[in-house]
C-alpha cells in the first residue's frame, strides 16, 4: 500500500525534510518540477517551531503537510494562531479520512496576513477516534467537526453542540467509513470489509 | 329620463304609493353603483396585470380572449367555482360576516363620489360628504380584525392584528390631510369642493397653499389604508405565510380582493376630487359641461390608479416597526403642519 511504504521510509531516515516530487507513472511533463522554494521555507519554519511534536513533514505537489500527535493538537493550534510569525487565523477546511488501519483529520490552515497556508494532520486510532475540538480557536470549525462526527464518527471532545448535521438523528453508522455499505433493507453491516470492496482495495497493480 | 322619472314609472307600474318612489330611486342608484364598482374592479385588475407585465418586460395575460381581456372574468369565475372551505374550528358566523364587513365600507364610499357635474352624476350629495368617507372607511378595521381572529390560526390572527394597527395609525394622517381642501372650500360636501376648484389648472387645491404636501400625505396615508405595496404588511408573504385572509377561499376570498381593488379606485377618485379639481377641465370653460365632466373625472382617477400600480411594481415592503414609525413620527406631523399652513393661507386670504 503506497501509504505504508511512505511511512516506513520516513521513520528510518529520522524525519528529514524530503521533497516527494518523485517521478510517477502517467506524467505528462518530462521532468519533475521542484517544489516552490516558498513552500520549503514554510516547511522549514514549521519544522523549527514544532520540531519535537512534528512526527513527519512532507512537501508534495504544492502543499506542505505536517503530522502531529493528537495530544499536542490544542496547544500547537493555539500557537499557530497566536504566534505573530505564523498567525494562521483562517481555517479553510477540515477533512476526516479513513485510512483503514487508522483515521486521520486534516486541518487546512491559512494566514490572511502572511498569505501562506499548510495542512496540519493528526492520526487517530480506529476504535476510539477521540480528539479535542478546535472551535475555541477557530469558530469556523464548528460545522466541519459536526460533519466529521456525522459522516466519519470522529468524536470531538468539548464541542459545544456535537450532533449529526446532515443525516437524520436516528441514523446508525457513519457512511464515509470505507467498510460502510448501506443495504437499504437491513441494518448497515460494519463487522468487516464485504468481499467486493476488499477486491477493489487490493486491485492496485 | 333621470332616475326619479324611472322610479315614478316603476312605482306607478307596480301600483305602489307615490311616496315610495324615493325608495326605488335609492335601490336603483345602489344597483347602478354596485354594477359600476364590479366593472371598475374587473377593468382595474386587468389593467394592473397588463401594466405590471409592461413594466417588468413581459407580456401579461394573453391567453384568455384577444389580448387577455377576459382574464379577470376568468379569475372571478374560478373563484366562484372554487369550494368555499371554512376551517372546522373557525367561528362560522364571524367567519362569514368578516368579509362582508370589509367589502361594504369600500362600496358605501361610492355614494358620495361625484362622477360629474350636477346632481344626476352623484348618488347623494351629502353635505358631510368627506366626514362620511372617513367614518365609513374606519369600519373595515373591524372586518379585518374579525377575519384574522375567526380563522383560528395564529398566523392570520397576527396578520389581522398587525393590519388593524396599521389601519388605525394611518387613519389619523388621512383624516388630517383631508382637512386641507375642506378649509379651502369651506364645506364638507364633495360637489362644493369640486366647484371651489373651478378656475382652471392653477385653482386646483394641489397647487393652492403648500403645493403637493397635502396631496402626497393623503395619497401615502390612503395607500397604507388599503395595504398597498410598500405597506402590504398583512400579506407579507416572505414573513408570515399570509395575512388575515389565509383561510379564505372561493367567493369569500373574492370579497377581499374586490374590496381591495375597489378601495384603490375610490382613493384615487377621492384624491382626484379633492386635489385635482374633480370633474373640471384644466383649461377654464373648455369642455367643462355635461358628459365631458365625467370624462375628466375618469381621466384623472385612472391616471392616479396607474401611478399606484407603478409604485406597486417598484417598491419593496417596509418592516412593521418602520411602518409604524413612518406613520406616527413623519406622516402625522406633516399632516398637522399642512393643516396649519392651509389654515393660515385661508385666514390671510380672507383678510382675517
Amino acid at each position, binding site marked *: 500500500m503506497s501509504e505504508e511504504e511512505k511511512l516506513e521510509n520516513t521513520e528510518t531516515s529520522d524525519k528529514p525534510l524530503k521533497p516527494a516530487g518523485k517521478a510517477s507513472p502517467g506524467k505528462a511533463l518530462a521532468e519533475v518540477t521542484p517544489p516552490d522554494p516558498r513552500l520549503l521555507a514554510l516547511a522549514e519554519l514549521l519544522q523549527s517551531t514544532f520540531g519535537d511534536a512534528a512526527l513527519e513533514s512532507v512537501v508534495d505537489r504544492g502543499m506542505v503537510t505536517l503530522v502531529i500527535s493528537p495530544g499536542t493538537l490544542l496547544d500547537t493550534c493555539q500557537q499557530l494562531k497566536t504566534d505573530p510569525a505564523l498567525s494562521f487565523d483562517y481555517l479553510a477546511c477540515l477533512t476526516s479520512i479513513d485510512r483503514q488501519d487508522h483515521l486521520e483529520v486534516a486541518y487546512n490552515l491559512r494566514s490572511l496576513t502572511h498569505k501562506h497556508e499548510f495542512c496540519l494532520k493528526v492520526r487517530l486510532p480506529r476504535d476510539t477516534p477521540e480528539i479535542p475540538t478546535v472551535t475555541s480557536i477557530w469558530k469556523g470549525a464548528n460545522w466541519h467537526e459536526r460533519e466529521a462526527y456525522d459522516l466519519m464518527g470522529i468524536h470531538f471532545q468539548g464541542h459545544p453542540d456535537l450532533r449529526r448535521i446532515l443525516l437524520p438523528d436516528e441514523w446508525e453508522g457513519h457512511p464515509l467509513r470505507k467498510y460502510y455499505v448501506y443495504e437499504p433493507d437491513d441494518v448497515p453491516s460494519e463487522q468487516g470489509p464485504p468481499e467486493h470492496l476488499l477486491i477493489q482495495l487490493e486491485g492496485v497493480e | 329620463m333621470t332616475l326619479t322619472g324611472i322610479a315614478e314609472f316603476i312605482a306607478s307600474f307596480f301600483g305602489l304609493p307615490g311616496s315610495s318612489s324615493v325608495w326605488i330611486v335609492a335601490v336603483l342608484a345602489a344597483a347602478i353603483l354596485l354594477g359600476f364598482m364590479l366593472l371598475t374592479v374587473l377593468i382595474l385588475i386587468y389593467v394592473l396585470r397588463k401594466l405590471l407585465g409592461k413594466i417588468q418586460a413581459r407580456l401579461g395575460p394573453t391567453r384568455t380572449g384577444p389580448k387577455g381581456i377576459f382574464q379577470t372574468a376568468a379569475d372571478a369565475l374560478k373563484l366562484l367555482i372554487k369550494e368555499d372551505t371554512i376551517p372546522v374550528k373557525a367561528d362560522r358566523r364571524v367567519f362569514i360576516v368578516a368579509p362582508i364587513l370589509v367589502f361594504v365600507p369600500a362600496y358605501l364610499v361610492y355614494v358620495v363620489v361625484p362622477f360629474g357635474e350636477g346632481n344626476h352624476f352623484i348618488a347623494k350629495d351629502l353635505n358631510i360628504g368627506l366626514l362620511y368617507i372617513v*367614518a365609513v372607511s374606519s369600519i373595515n378595521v373591524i372586518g379585518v*380584525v374579525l377575519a384574522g381572529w375567526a380563522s383560528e390560526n395564529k398566523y392570520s*390572527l397576527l396578520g389581522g392584528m398587525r393590519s388593524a394597527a396599521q389601519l388605525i395609525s394611518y387613519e389619523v394622517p388621512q383624516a388630517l390631510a383631508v382637512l386641507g381642501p375642506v378649509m379651502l372650500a369651506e364645506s364638507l360636501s364633495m360637489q362644493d369642493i369640486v366647484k371651489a376648484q373651478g378656475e382652471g389648472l392653477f385653482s386646483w387645491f394641489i397647487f393652492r397653499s403648500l403645493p403637493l404636501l397635502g396631496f402626497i400625505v393623503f395619497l401615502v396615508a390612503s395607500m397604507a389604508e388599503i395595504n398597498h405595496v410598500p405597506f402590504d404588511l398583512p400579506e407579507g408573504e416572505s414573513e408570515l405565510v399570509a395575512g388575515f385572509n389565509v383561510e379564505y377561499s372561493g367567493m369569500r376570498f373574492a370579497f377581499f380582493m374586490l374590496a381591495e381593488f375597489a378601495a384603490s379606485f375610490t382613493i384615487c377618485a377621492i384624491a382626484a376630487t379633492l386635489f385635482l379639481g374633480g370633474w373640471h377641465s384644466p383649461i377654464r370653460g373648455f369642455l367643462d359641461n355635461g358628459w365631458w365632466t365625467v370624462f375628466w373625472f375618469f381621466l384623472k382617477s385612472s391616471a392616479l390608479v396607474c401611478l399606484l400600480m407603478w409604485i406597486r411594481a417598484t417598491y419593496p415592503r417596509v418592516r412593521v416597526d418602520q411602518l409604524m414609525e413612518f406613520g406616527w413620527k413623519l406622516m402625522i406631523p406633516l399632516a398637522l403642519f399642512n393643516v396649519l399652513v392651509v389654515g393660515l393661507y385661508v385666514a390671510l386670504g380672507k383678510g382675517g
Partner: protein
Amino acid sequence: MDWHTCSFYVLSVMILGSALMVVSLRNIVHCALFLAFTFMGVAGVFALLHAEFLAAVQVLIYVGAITVLILFAVMLTQKTIGISLKQTNRLAPLAVLSAVTFLCMIAVIALNTTFPTSGQHTVAVSTQTIGSAILGNGSYVVPFEVASILLLAAMVGAIVIARGQDN
C-alpha cells in the same frame, strides 16, 4: 305610515335587538360585534333626524374606534378562541331590580314631558352651526379645550403605563 317612520321602527328594533344580544351572548367577540351594530343603529337614527354630522361622527368614533379598542383589548388580554362566558352570576337579581327601577324612572320622565311634536321635519343642523357652536365667539370654547386637555392627559398616561412594562 310613510317610509320615514317605518325606517325608524326598523332601526329601533335593530338597536334594541343587538343591545340585547350584547348582554346575553356567551362568546365575547360576538358581543363586541353586536355592540358595533348597536352603534350603527344609533347612527342611523341620527341620520333620520337629519343630524348627519352626528351620524358620521357616531360611526367614526364609536364603530371605528371604540369597538376596535374593545376588540383589541379582548383579543390581546386573554385566549378568546372558543371559550364561552357565563353571563349570569349571583348578582343577577340585583341587576334586574336596578334595571327595572331605571326603566320606571325613564317612563315617568318620558310621559309627563311634552315633546314638540311638530309635523314638519326638524331644522337641519348643518355642520357650520356645530362648528361655530364649538369654536365660535362666546360659545363652548372653554369646555371644548378642557376636554381636549383631559384627553391628552389620558393618552399620555396610557403610554406611560404601557411603556412601563419594558424598562
